[in-house]
C-alpha cells in the first residue's frame, strides 16, 4: 500500500539523516552521491538498509548506481 511504501522509504531517508545530523531534510530528487550523503564506505550499509526496508534481496555485484542515486530512484526500483 502507498502508506507502507512511504513509511519504508522514510526508513531509508531517516538512516541518511542519522548519518548526517547537519541535514534536516533530503529531497526525493536530490543526488545522494553528489551531495556526499553516501560514499563508498557507507554504500554497503546503505544497500543493506534498502534491503531491510524494502524486503527485496539485492545482488551487490549487479547494482546500477543510477538505482541508488536519489530516493525517488530507490523507490521506483525497490519499493
Amino acid at each position, binding site marked *: 500500500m502507498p502508506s507502507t511504501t512511504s513509511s519504508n522509504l522514510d526508513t531509508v531517508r531517516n538512516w541518511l539523516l542519522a548519518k548526517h545530523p547537519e541535514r534536516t531534510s533530503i529531497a526525493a530528487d536530490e543526488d545522494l552521491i553528489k551531495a556526499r550523503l553516501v560514499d563508498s564506505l557507507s554504500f*554497503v550499509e546503505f544497500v*543493506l538498509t534498502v534491503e531491510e526496508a524494502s524486503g527485496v534481496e539485492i545482488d551487490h555485484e549487479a547494482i546500477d548506481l543510477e538505482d541508488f542515486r536519489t530516493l525517488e530512484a530507490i523507490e521506483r526500483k525497490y519499493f
Partner: protein
Amino acid sequence: MSGTAIRVGVDLVPLTRVQAMTDAGDDARLHRMLTPAEIALSRFPTGWDLHGVAGRLAAKEAVFKLLHVPGRPLPWQSIEILKSPGEWPCVRLTGPAHRWAADAGIEAVDVSISHEELFAVAVAATAAARPGHTHMPTHTHTYPHMHPHKEETHAQHHLVQP
C-alpha cells in the same frame, strides 16, 4: 606514442569509520567488504586490526578508481588486497574487477599503503592500454620485489587472476 597510459588511484580511510563498523557489534558490513582471505589477514586474536582493515579498504578503493568504471559501485569482494610472502600488499582481481581490468588492457596493479594514527592511505598504479590500441589477453605477471619499509609497505605486484 606508447600503447599504454599510466593510471593511478588514491584513497584515504579514517580509522573512526572502521571503528564505527566494529563498535556496532555487527560485522556484517566488514564481511561484505572483505573476503575470507582478507579477514584472516585483518584480525588479531583479540579482534579486528583496525589499521589493517582501514588500509585494505583504502587500497580497494584506490584500485577501483584506476579501473575507470562508471555507474557501478565498488565490487568489494572482487578486489582483494592480500600479502606477498615478503609482507607487502598485493592485488588479486576476480569477477567483475578482473573483467574491467582485462577490458582496459591492465595486466598488473601495484599498491602502496601507509598508516598514521588516525588514517590509512593507499595509492594504486597501473599501465592500461591507450584507447584505440589493442592489447593482449590478460595473464598473471609478477614483478621484482621491493624492500618493504616497516610503516609503508610498497608493493609492486601481481595481478589479475580469473
